[in-house]
């Protein structure tokens, strides 16, 4: 009995320790491999079932993303103009939009492989870039896929993703700013809602 207890607590300790000490590159590697393993086996996602891809992303990927930070980055200085309710609405809508986009990209996955570039972080660093590369089958130029992570508490959270140098977050900056200039914060919330609704409708049709 004592032995069992010891074993149990050892396991528990091992579990929590590894969750805490997971380095940012190991986190990206684990999540990438886990998600792609599922996509490779899932014929529905491969044939364009966005809904299923969204479920996968929500379960496996979302917990490691910091959407508030992403929304702040995309809003730049307009973020401060928004009140708490507007900030929440913006974050929720932007999250939906990014998840949908990311999921759509997953349904386009064919048989590319991911290369993980060497990663070294200086001790004490809390803001890092983890670089990966998508290798196309047959050759052609690799596509760089970079993750920017920030340490919040014990865990690392992704706050930006760059595909071939194009940030999926800051690419919205100009269009968000233009929308806020013309129609205010609420106008931007509305146009995000409208975009998400039309995306929803399109995926139901399929």
């Amino acid at each position, binding site marked *: 009995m004592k032995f069992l207890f010891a074993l149990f607590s050892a396991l528990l300790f091992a579990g929590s320790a590894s969750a805490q000490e997971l380095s940012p590159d190991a986190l990206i590697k684990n999540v990438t491999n886990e998600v792609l393993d599922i996509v490779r086996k899932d014929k529905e996602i491969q044939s364009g079932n966005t809904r299923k891809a969204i479920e996968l992303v929500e379960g496996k990927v979302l917990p490691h993303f910091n959407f508030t930070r992403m929304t702040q980055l995309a809003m730049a*200085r307009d973020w401060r103009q928004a009140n708490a309710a507007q900030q929440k609405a913006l974050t929720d809508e932007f999250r939906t939009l990014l998840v949908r986009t990311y999921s759509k990209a997953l349904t386009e996955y064919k048989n590319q492989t991911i290369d993980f570039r060497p990663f070294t972080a200086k001790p004490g660093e809390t803001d890092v870039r983890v670089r990966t590369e998508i290798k196309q089958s047959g050759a052609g130029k690799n596509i760089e896929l970079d993750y920017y992570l920030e340490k919040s508490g014990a865990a690392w959270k992704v706050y930006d993703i760059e595909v071939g140098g194009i940030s999926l977050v800051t690419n919205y900056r100009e269009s968000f700013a233009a929308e806020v200039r013309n129609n205010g914060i609420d106008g931007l919330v509305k146009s995000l809602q409208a975009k998400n609704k039309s995306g929803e409708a399109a995926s139901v049709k399929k």
Partner: protein
Amino acid sequence: MKTTLTAQLKSIVVAGMAVGVLAGCATSGNPKDPIEGFNRAMFAFNEGLDSAIVKPVAKGYEAVLPSPVRTGVTNFFANIDDLFIGVNNLLQGKIPQAFNDFGRVAINSTIGLLGVLDVASEAGLEKHEEDFGQTFGRWGVGNGAYVVIPVFGPRTARDTVGLVLDVAADPVANHRPKRTRDAALVLRTISDRANLLPADKVVEEAALDKYSYMRDAYLQRRRNLIHDGNPPREVEANADIEQMAPLAAPADSFSGPRASASSVPVLALQAESTVGNSQ
């Protein structure tokens, strides 16, 4: 069918320009995009051309030809490109990269069966992406205004000059007889377009306003390419954020103590956009 492809292309470009001029040149105040009205008209024209002709053909091409054949076509043209990429790397003073590119051409043109197989990549010689626009950027020439060119699509003023040289130096465009050249140009266009089909769907899903999404993606991409994947991280965003309270704090707390500090990030933002212009 005596009219050559270039003549047809020229008339399309001229027609497109006319549409743009008719649409007028409204401005939006974005310093990177001073002729947004014209550009939006051009963008709509290009989108129309794409959805009416290029995209359907590319879809047909993708449906009819098996994937290995399409990869072969892509590789064939990519191999011709490598020569030109090597020259641009030389012009940028990146000698090892240039030798890498010439090595790729040597290997792929022979063992790779005239470029159809990309053996060099398997052997560890990495594929690069260079053009005259990037070379000018490397030399310190700034972006200039963003401009959407009929048929060719988004460019900056600098990259437009680059494009003229790209076309002048393009082995495919200079190929004779003209009939083979035209066929090759069409095939290359269709092949390139087919490779972009998956990205299409993602952009449709992502963009609030497709015009500005494509514009900003283009500008970010070019910046990244000129710096070979390591552009200096834009600081203004982080400077802006660092002044904010922890994420969990209620947003109301932003308005108080930070009001006095808010002019600093605004200045930083303006400085950044000026730097962006002169780049």
